[in-house]
């Protein structure tokens, strides 16, 4: 814990970190365990999440707010998914540039505008965690591609690819739901 705190520069941030640790460490473990179903791996995910958090404490304004809890949930889930991917050796991102097409974006926009809130909600729930996380980082927590890349431990290009894939997946789900 002391080393943890030594990484944080200001007193205010140290206090914030202690509060987060005391308030959410078990919550974070639970979130990770729900993904990994292994309490030790879940602990690893929590450690990784805290490690990432030391670099992004400025994103947390109010420790006790639901927003913070959601942000911690996203980080922990992403770290848990990383562990699964590492276990599977599934770390190579496929750069399929065919996803990067404006036409697809236009279609997604069209679907989102057309579909009801419930349908959109249902489609998001069906998204794979890897894509949902990248959406959460980008649209919910409003992080930049660089920040997302740092939190995920990947390059910005990988982040772009994941976002485009996520949009494509969501578009496909919405298209299927529409019919």
């Amino acid at each position: 814990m002391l080393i943890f705190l030594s990484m944080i520069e200001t007193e205010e941030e140290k206090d914030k970190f202690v509060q987060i640790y005391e308030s959410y460490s078990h919550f974070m473990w639970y979130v990770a365990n729900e993904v990994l179903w292994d309490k030790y791996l879940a602990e690893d995910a929590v450690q990784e999440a805290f490690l990432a958090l030391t670099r992004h404490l400025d994103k947390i304004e109010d420790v006790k707010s639901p927003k913070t809890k959601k942000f911690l949930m996203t980080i922990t889930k992403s770290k848990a998914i990383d562990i699964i991917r590492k276990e599977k050796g599934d770390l190579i991102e496929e750069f399929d540039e065919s996803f990067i097409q404006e036409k697809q974006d236009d279609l997604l926009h069209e679907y989102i505008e057309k579909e009801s809130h419930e349908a959109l909600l249902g489609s998001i729930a069906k998204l794979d965690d890897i894509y949902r996380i990248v959406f959460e980082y980008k649209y919910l927590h409003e992080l930049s591609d660089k920040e997302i890349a740092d939190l995920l431990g990947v390059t910005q290009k990988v982040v772009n690819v994941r976002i485009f894939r996520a949009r494509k997946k969501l578009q496909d789900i919405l298209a299927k739901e529409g019919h």
Partner: protein
Amino acid sequence: MEVEKRLKEALDEQLTKDLEKIPTEEEIKVRHTFNDSFLTYMQQLIYNERRNKKKKRAIKRTYFLRAAACLVCLVGIGTLMFTAFPFGRSDSTDKSSRMEATSESTRSTESTKESSDTGTNSIASDQMQLGIESQREMEDASKTEYFTLTSLSFDGDYHIDVSVNNQIDTEMTYTPIYEWTYTLNGKTTTTSLDIDVEGSKEVLKSGESITETYNLNDYGIKKGGGVLEIKRMINEQETTLSITIE
């Protein structure tokens, strides 16, 4: 933007729903407690992260310092090369440098000359004395000895003191100097003064002497060098005093 807003709302709502399914912190604590190794491992993890970061920074800093050192060396070498071999300088610059050097040298020559001029005073004085001596030998001593140079000085202008000495037992007559002849580099300039020689005779008793001072500038003699001859009548005889100025 509207689409992104809708997406955000949907994601937020979905996450809220997910959160509702999670028990409270206290409930989870009952189910799971972190053991001691949890914190230790986390500390190790953070320590490694910090060490790696420091290493990366150190490597970056080393590269930066090396690059900076190389740059400084290159600039230094470049400056030295340029100073030693002034590539690309225009001819006019060269010329001006050379002219400067020449004028400097001229100045130094001039100053040397000046100092030599100044030095000439004493030398000239000595040499003049020699000239007088030699003149004395050439001329009749009974006449010459009456008309002598007693001193030469320089304070920007040359000044001479000349004397008429009566070394005989009887009275002596003398006139002012009425002719100045100056010869330099083969060029002779003669200045004759309009004096009534007969009417301006003066008498000098036995054993008496008079000394007169003249500024040679008044006779166009500004620098050392050349031979000056001055004439006056002493005891009805034209007497010449020759002075060599070095």
